[in-house]
């Protein structure tokens, strides 16, 4: 395993800091007087500048310095946190992100951003040339050290000279030296040639700890020396003075540096940053453990050795706990995903002229980190779509008797082994006639073809479908809703849309909690075994020989007065064996659709470690992965959304006819 790349570590930290700053800025837009928010934004910028310089991101440090300076003035009450200033820093933040990620940036863009920033702070329009070159180096940035030292009492007599030591420390950076005279005796007790002085020095330097130790290299054996790193800080005198005065300042006026240090200490104590690939490796090991445990269980079950059986049970318990723990380790709250939409909505309002209110619910719901990362792009597209196509302009809304501000609501909630994410808007709703016309025009459906409302709405997710009259820079980015659907299904999830004319639309995503392990129902069809994800299983019923005969050619059963289409997996997979006399139907669902899967035998529950399929198998479309069973055999995991879709298609003409 390789060590952490420091540059990558900084980039991760920068990303978090920028998100923190962004959140602070967006909150500040609503509460411009909030001191805590102002301080938080300043701290984020300050730390970003300091860390950037430490890791060699000089251009980022230089650029951020200007934003930090602007917010320092806000902090001091010299300028208000105006909407214009907030917008400028938000725009500048994108530039910082590019610099942190090492993407190429146009120097002119940086200059223009700083000109805007300057104008926002000064309340006028300043020419860009009047500002410092954003790429120009800022004052050196480094760490601040607190150094306390004293010399032995006979040091002066022996030739030691404290003043040159202090001068050397000053040579390392910005320095504040304070003598400590507490140990100086009363005049009558004083031996004037003895040294009773001590010093406390606050040094901000780009040099390392070694350079400090080197200052004392010739006196180190006899002296007392304490060196403590405070935090990386700029050479800004005000900041340094703030740090110096920390002991006498009241708690509420704790210097920024100290506050930042506090928060870092808490953060460090609570979390450890681990590269995702290490978690993946661990998950693989847990997967192998689960498979081995499954084999052990099978061996033990056929053994008369009670000790072996006891150990097998113990291992089973531990493996299950290990799996659960591992899943929790990978979980992160969806707020990490949702938070970015506040900025998106902020930008969309500016771009569209629409008034949009973002509501977020269930932000503490947790999802596998990998899933969250892969959900980001589809969700951005769906939110853009809701803003661009769904919501009306303020004038249209007023004319329709609606509040001028449209609502986009993002919500998440856990439902068993799935998380349900919805993107709802209270806009105009999907225009069915336009969808139909477009689908007919594109040859997706035959003219006049009878479709259910759900089928009609789902045409939106067909490849190449778009009802947008013109391509806008919001949603018409060459990525269609079909790509969104494909991505969601690639996550073993499902996607559904409902819409009411004039009331808005709701896109629902059902996403598995994790992509690595699922609970499954192991079934047998002929001699093959398959795994059905337990989260999709609604119930199991028997298909009697009589029902089997009656349903031939029809593939429908009645469950509590409701017709449910079913698929005979024997036929789907062409197993070529005769059916068992007592077949079972496993009723599965995705969204609102249900379908029955006819199998020969239900073998029981199975903790399933998902292994990816080869591209050949993946192309078949009925399987989402494979797993290794306890006896070493392989079982394919059924792709339930694909099978449900297949079942619904088979059933459609009958329902229309019936």
């Amino acid at each position, binding site marked *: 395993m390789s060590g952490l790349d420091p540059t990558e570590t900084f980039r991760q930290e920068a990303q978090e800091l920028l998100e923190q700053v962004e959140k602070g800025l967006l909150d500040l837009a609503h509460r411009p007087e909030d001191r805590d928010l102002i301080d938080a934004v300043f701290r984020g910028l300050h730390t970003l500048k300091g860390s950037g310089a430490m890791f060699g991101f000089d251009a980022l440090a230089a650029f951020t310095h200007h934003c930090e300076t602007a917010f320092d003035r806000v902090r001091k009450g010299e300028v208000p946190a105006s909407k214009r200033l907030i917008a400028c820093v938000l725009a500048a933040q994108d530039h910082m992100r590019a610099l942190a990620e090492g993407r190429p940036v146009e120097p002119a863009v940086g200059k223009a951003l700083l000109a805007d920033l300057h104008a926002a702070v000064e309340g006028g329009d300043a020419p860009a040339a009047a500002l410092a070159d954003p790429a120009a180096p800022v004052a050196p940035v480094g760490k601040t050290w607190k150094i306390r030292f004293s010399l032995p009492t006979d040091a002066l007599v022996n030739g030691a000279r404290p*003043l040159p030591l202090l001068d050397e420390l000053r040579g390392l950076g910005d320095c504040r030296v304070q003598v400590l005279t507490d140990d100086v005796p009363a005049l009558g007790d004083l031996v004037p040639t003895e040294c009773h002085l001590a010093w406390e020095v606050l040094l901000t330097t780009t040099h390392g700890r070694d350079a400090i130790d080197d200052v004392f290299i010739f006196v180190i054996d006899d002296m007392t020396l304490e060196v403590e790193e405070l935090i990386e800080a700029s050479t800004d005198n005000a900041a340094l003075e703030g740090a110096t005065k920390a002991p006498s300042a009241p708690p509420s006026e704790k210097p920024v540096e100290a506050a930042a240090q506090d928060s870092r200490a808490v953060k460090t104590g609570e979390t450890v940053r681990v590269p995702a690939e290490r978690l993946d490796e661990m998950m693989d090991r847990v997967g192998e453990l689960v498979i081995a445990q499954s084999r052990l269980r099978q061996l033990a079950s056929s053994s008369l050795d009670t000790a072996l059986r006891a150990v097998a049970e113990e291992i089973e318990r531990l493996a299950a706990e290990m799996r659960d723990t591992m899943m929790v380790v990978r979980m992160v709250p969806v707020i990490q995903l949702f938070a970015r939409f506040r900025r998106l909505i902020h930008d969309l309002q500016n771009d569209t002229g629409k008034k949009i209110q973002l509501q977020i619910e269930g932000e503490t719901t947790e999802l596998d980190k990998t899933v969250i990362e892969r959900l980001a792009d589809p969700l951005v597209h769906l939110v853009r779509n809701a803003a661009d196509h769904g919501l009306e302009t303020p004038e249209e809304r007023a004319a329709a008797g609606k509040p001028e501000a449209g609502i986009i609501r993002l919500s998440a909630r856990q439902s068993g082994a799935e998380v349900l994410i919805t993107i709802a808007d209270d806009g105009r709703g999907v225009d069915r006639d336009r969808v139909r016309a477009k689908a007919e025009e594109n040859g997706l459906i035959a003219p006049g073809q009878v479709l259910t409302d759900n089928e009609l709405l789902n045409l939106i997710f067909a490849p190449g479908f778009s009802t947008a009259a013109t391509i806008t820079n919001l949603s018409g980015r060459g990525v269609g809703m079909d790509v969104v659907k494909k991505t969601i299904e690639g996550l073993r999830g499902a996607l559904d849309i409902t819409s009411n004319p004039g009331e808005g639309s709701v896109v629902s995503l059902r996403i598995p909690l994790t992509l690595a392990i699922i609970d499954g129902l192991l079934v047998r069809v002929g001699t093959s075994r398959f795994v059905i994800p337990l989260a999709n299983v609604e119930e199991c019923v028997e298909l009697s020989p009589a029902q089997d005969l009656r349903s031939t050619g029809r593939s429908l059963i009645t469950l509590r007065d409701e017709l449910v289409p079913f698929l005979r997996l024997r036929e789907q997979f062409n197993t070529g064996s005769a059916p068992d006399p007592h077949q079972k139907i496993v009723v599965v669902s995705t969204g609102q659709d249900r379908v029955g899967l006819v199998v020969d035998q239900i073998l029981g529950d199975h903790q399933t470690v998902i292994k990816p399929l080869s591209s050949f198998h993946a192309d078949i479309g009925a399987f989402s992965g494979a797993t290794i069973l306890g006896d070493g055999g392989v079982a394919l995991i059924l792709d339930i959304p694909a099978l449900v879709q297949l079942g619904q298609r088979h059933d459609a003409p009958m329902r229309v006819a019936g």
Partner: protein
Amino acid sequence: MSDTSEYIVSFSGNLTVSSIAEAYAALTAGMELGGPVVVNLDAVEEADLTLPQLLEAARRTAAAKGQLIRLEKPAQGLVLQVLQRGGFLNSDDANRLDFWTGESRQL
């Protein structure tokens, strides 16, 4: 402005670790008189940290006894440099700053 009852101790020449003992003796003698003591540093040609340490000890002792001790003029020249280099003027102690520079400052 000197008071006629003040005892003036004038330091001159080198006031370093090798010669500070004489200054110590002179100052102690002046302090033992019990009246106000004024220290003149005009003729100091060289100084190290033993000088401010000596005067710090005298100042604190005087303060404890309620005795007055002050500099005739605020520290300047090389004495001021030693004070600055030694960190004597970065203190939150207003009395100390007042003693050396003659002006009270509220930090």
